[in-house]
């Protein structure tokens, strides 16, 4: 176990280093200049600015400075907001994104498990078909389309929730719903398949034969065993939520890192783009590692040491 963990952590660091390197050199290839009014600047002004941001050094030095800084949690200074370090820019915005992501994950997974379980228990009935249709729709309708529709019909027409902004809990409801639809649909499909499998297994028959009530069989045996593989979906969910945050935060004007990412791309703010890319990658890599460990712990059939083929 310890050996496996060390190996995984080594690869994690390697991955992050490669990502940091690739991003850094890609950013150097990027067209456009970080200065908004480059045409109006005199040569001296440019030189002063370049010096301030360290852009006058050779690229390999810039690279080493960047990597060394990153190890100390320093992602450089944003080009867009003068003198604001990227780290604090991201730090100030991370909370909103994480909150939104967690809320969406919990809502989507809980509802998905319920819908999937009910569909499996009522296999072949109209309940099942309805759940299937909803999950296909949830998988197919892009979340940004849903977000715009929610914003207009529920936010503006019905006025149930504020249409945009951040600060109160009521403002988080619509973006959470829009983000939760993907995980919901995926979970419902997954749990349904998994439950149908579980329900036809021998230990369920045994439970019934022992005289356990239907609910007890479902709760103690069917649910628990169907939910174990769900852990493997956490990685893909994290990716979906990160992706979704970019557009959902934009639509609902949430001050999160997804919204900042899009803004930075549109303004050629390299340090922020690199910083947020790294935050996304670190987040995903850590989540994947935790997923693997948790999966090994809750399902003893999976031996972490052997999983390396």
């Amino acid at each position, binding site marked *: 176990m310890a050996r496996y963990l060390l190996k995984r952590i080594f690869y994690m660091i390697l991955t992050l280093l490669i990502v940091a390197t690739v991003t850094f050199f890609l950013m150097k290839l990027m067209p456009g200049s970080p200065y908004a009014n480059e045409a109006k600047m005199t040569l001296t002004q440019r030189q002063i600015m370049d010096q301030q941001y360290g852009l006058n050094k050779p690229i390999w030095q810039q690279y080493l400075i960047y990597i060394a800084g990153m190890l100390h949690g320093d992602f450089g200074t944003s080009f867009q907001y003068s003198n604001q370090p990227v780290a604090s820019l991201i730090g100030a915005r991370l909370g909103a994104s994480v909150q939104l992501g967690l809320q969406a994950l919990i809502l989507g997974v809980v509802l998905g498990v319920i819908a999937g379980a009910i569909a499996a228990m009522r296999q072949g009935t109209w309940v099942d078909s309805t759940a299937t249709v909803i999950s296909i729709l949830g998988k197919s309708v*892009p979340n940004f*389309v849903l977000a715009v529709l929610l914003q207009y019909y529920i936010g503006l027409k019905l006025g149930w929730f504020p249409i945009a902004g951040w600060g109160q809990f009521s403002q988080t409801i619509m973006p959470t719903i829009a983000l939760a639809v993907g995980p919901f649909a995926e979970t419902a499909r997954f749990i349904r398949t998994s439950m149908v499998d579980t329900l036809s297994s021998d230990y369920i028959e045994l439970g019934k034969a022992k005289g356990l009530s239907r609910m007890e069989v479902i709760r103690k045996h069917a649910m628990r065993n169907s939910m174990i593989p769900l852990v493997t979906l956490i990685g893909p969910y994290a990716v979906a939520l990160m992706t979704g945050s970019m557009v959902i935060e934009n639509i609902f004007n949430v001050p999160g890192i997804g919204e900042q990412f899009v803004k930075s791309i*549109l303004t050629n703010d390299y340090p922020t783009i690199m910083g947020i*890319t790294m935050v*996304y990658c670190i987040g*995903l890599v850590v989540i994947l590692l935790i997923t693997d460990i948790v999966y090994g712990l809750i399902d003893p059939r999976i031996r972490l040491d052997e999983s390396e083929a």
Partner: protein
Amino acid sequence: MTEEKLNLPADAFDPLPKDEAQDNENIAGPSLSFAQNVWLRFKQRKAAVISAIIVILMIVVAFGSTPFINKSTLVKSHPQYANLPAKVPGMGAINGLNGKIKQNGKWVDAYAQNGVPKDKYFIAGTDYLGRSLGQRIIYGTKISLIVALVAAFFDLTIGVAYGIVSGWKGGGVDNVMQRIIEIISSVPNLVIVVLMLVVLKPGIGSIIIAIAISSWTTMARQVRAETLSLKNEEYVLAARSLGESSWKIAWKHLVPNLSSIIIIQTMYTIPTAIFFEAFLSFIGIGISAPETSLGVLLNEGQKNFQFLPYQMWYPAIVLCILMIAFNLLGDGLRDAFDPRGQR
């Protein structure tokens, strides 16, 4: 314990007629090949069959429209026809399809208001520059389908080849190849796509390159896992001991046996790719004017949604139908290829 002898008289039995007994051995139908079996099972999934028809129709309409709808017709604007709602011949009675639009709670004939000739119809209305929304949607669908085809192409080439080589070679090669995939997939796909778009010029070309980099990893993983188990099959061993080259084994033995996984995975890559394109264009870093795509149309429509909801609804509906059709088609094919997996 003594066994009781059962005394049954001979006339207690009813002999079957002779010809019927022979029938028992008879196999009624010709034996079916794998493909025929798949087709039989696929036909039973109504939703999947309808989806397949919709996909084919969309492909025919989108690509068949090329002579009529191209970049030059797309950029022609007619400001006098701007923001007209849908008007379909023969639909005079249905508000929303008869050229009328709700203004301050009343339905007003926007065509008469703007002095549009009586015989001019825009089946899906027009956008803010007076360009036919229907034409733009068809063009956008074509872009989505092109993106889908490209993603499928990379899945089938890079993904399959990478997976087979990795699984077949095994050992160190496999290890290195898997580490590379691990690295690529621990970066969110969208971040790769976005970074590529930042470096290259936004447009269909960059989207294609971005998809080429990121879309094939799942396929490669699945193909590798399956190759690992196929490699130990006896027919592969037989082919090897007969001295077949690796290339020939891969092509003649592995690919046919991998075909169901490959087809199913391709069908799942396609909606993801379509979503990518729409998503990128929607946030403004994908396809940009004068080109258009469903994502661009959604973005334009969203700005005017409060007053001209049709400008967002129509492209949204087309995009959703496209996504639903591909998803259902994928599910149907999965069930058809792999009947063991319960639905």
